[in-house]
């Protein structure tokens, strides 16, 4: 937990991801007068309005104008401020993609984007409000750092860490209401360093965001089946922690990635790129949203439908364990 944070685990347990970030950002604002919070008519929905209530003079609501939201943020960053911009992920990453890319990333400006309602967390709202493409888009922008916190506690850590991290940062969170995964905030969160939540030697689950909790649940089930499951919370999708991935390849030889995102170009693809570049083959499965638009539903139902909940993960792990792979100790004969 960053220095000076006053929210407690008890509070974070009861707060949504967005509520935690609204609170953390407000506390950061007391220390750093350069922080300006910005939104486009989603002050309440994204909780960035908490900052605005405390610091109305450093809060800008653009109205429903996402492109200028990021353009004006760029201008404020050029004027020496540190804008923190919040809107729904679908607008930040898709509607305003070129403004984020050209005005902010190209110029490498110190703008932090906290995108809420990402993935299928706003499942009932329908496809216009789902966002299963943002990791793909954001990680393709040079200079951009992409963080997908697992819960409210990690969101607080990520927001605090982003303030000290140079250049643009995209933090992807849900609508809230997700149960916490972490039991303490003080677990050494560092941008770019994955958290190994559980050691294991038979298979590794690499996950981010809401799927971390599902992976933890799946691991408990798999443990009763005699499997030793490693869980890696890859909260930073870019820059990705290559070391932890390669260690998992060498030590477990079986990897499943799980994400609340299109299986193309997201976490699974990022992990696959690292594996392939290493030349060390391993059994590998990507779980996520298939390359299609998501049906309407409550997030929990959708996780089940798209098999990224605990049951889906168990099923995928069982299938992968049944796949024949070369398991000798000698990696030297593989290129």
């Amino acid at each position, binding site marked *: 937990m960053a220095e000076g944070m006053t929210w407690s685990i008890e509070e974070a347990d009861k707060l949504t991801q967005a509520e935690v970030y609204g609170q953390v950002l407000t506390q950061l604002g007391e220390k750093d007068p350069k922080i300006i919070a910005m939104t486009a008519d989603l002050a309440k929905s994204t909780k960035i309005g908490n900052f605005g209530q405390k610091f109305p003079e450093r809060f800008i609501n653009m*109205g429903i104008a996402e492109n200028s939201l990021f*353009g*004006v943020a760029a201008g404020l960053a050029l004027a020496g401020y540190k804008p923190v911009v919040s809107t729904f992920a679908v607008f930040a990453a898709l509607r305003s993609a070129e403004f984020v890319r050209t005005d902010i990333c190209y*110029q490498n400006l110190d703008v932090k984007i906290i995108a809420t309602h990402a993935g299928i967390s706003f499942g009932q709202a329908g496809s216009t409000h789902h966002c299963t493409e943002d990791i793909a888009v954001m990680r393709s922008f040079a200079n951009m750092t992409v963080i997908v916190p697992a819960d409210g506690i990690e969101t607080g850590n990520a927001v605090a860490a982003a303030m000290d991290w140079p250049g643009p940062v995209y933090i992807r969170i849900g609508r809230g209401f997700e149960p916490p995964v972490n039991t303490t905030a003080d677990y050494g969160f560092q941008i770019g360093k994955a958290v190994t939540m559980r050691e294991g030697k038979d298979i590794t689950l690499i996950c981010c965001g809401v799927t971390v909790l599902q992976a933890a649940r799946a691991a408990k089930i798999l443990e009763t089946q005699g499997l030793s499951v490693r869980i890696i919370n890859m909260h930073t999708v870019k820059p990705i922690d290559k070391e932890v991935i390669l260690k998992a390849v060498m030590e477990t030889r079986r990897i499943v990635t799980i994400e609340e995102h299109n299986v193309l170009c997201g976490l699974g693809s990022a992990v696959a790129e690292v594996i392939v570049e290493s030349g060390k083959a391993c059994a590998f499965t990507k779980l996520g949203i298939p390359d299609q638009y998501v049906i309407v539903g409550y997030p929990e139902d959708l996780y089940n439908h798209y098999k990224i909940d605990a049951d889906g993960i168990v099923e995928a792990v069982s299938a992968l364990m049944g796949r024949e792979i070369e398991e000798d100790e000698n990696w030297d004969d593989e290129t």
Partner: protein
Amino acid sequence: MPLAQEDIKRLREKAKDIRKTIVDITFTAGGGHIGGSLSQTDILVALYYKYLNIDPKKPRWEDRDRFILSKGHGGLGWAAILGEKGYFDKALLKNFNKTGSPFGMHLDMLKVPGCDASTGSLGHGLGIAVGLALGAKMSGRKYRTYCVMGDGELCEGSVWEAAIIGAFHKLDNLTAFVDRNNLMIDGPTEEITQLDNINDKFASFGWEVLRIDGHDFAAIGGAIEKAQTIKAKPTVVICDTVKGKCVDYMENDYKWHYGGLDSDMRDKALACIDNYYAKA
């Protein structure tokens, strides 16, 4: 205070030099956005040689006036001025557009001293300018922000988003210009789309609107000075200009949005510029 005759004479001389440099860069680069660079020249010359509070020796000075060329394709004409002002060695302009050069067609703030924002994607500049002007208000800094837009880019919705927010925040430290040369890449603006009544459009968004001849220094200076006195709202100066100004075979021809010159065309262009300024 209106521009003195000697000021106007000095600015005309600068404009003549800059226009010739624009022709030279276009020739050596093998092509460039010459038409729009020539139409914007007098607005930029007035700003850079009379009004902007800047110091080329300190390009990142915090209290400098900011200049955003939203019509980033005018980067060629802007670079000609920045080089002449001494932001960098003018000899570098010979490499304009060349591989590894700091100068692409659209200037990059990370590579070109004096460039306050990387622009070129249309419809972005006014938003950035609004952010800069808002930043000045919030921090109590006295700098002014100037933004030059093309008329064609007014089709972009983001311009009007920025116009709304600029008026809402009463940004009287922001002056925008529209280089109204009536031409876009594909032809006359009024044949491609409908941009008429620009004055009314901006006025209805809450801006102070001035309309001038964009090649008349007295008018440009008068508008800039008037904008500095306007309180509680941003000002837009609609500048009626001629694309390809001063080069007879380019004037008002949309084909010269972008073009290359052989040595004969270059010589003719330079002669046209001399002729124009030889007249009173």
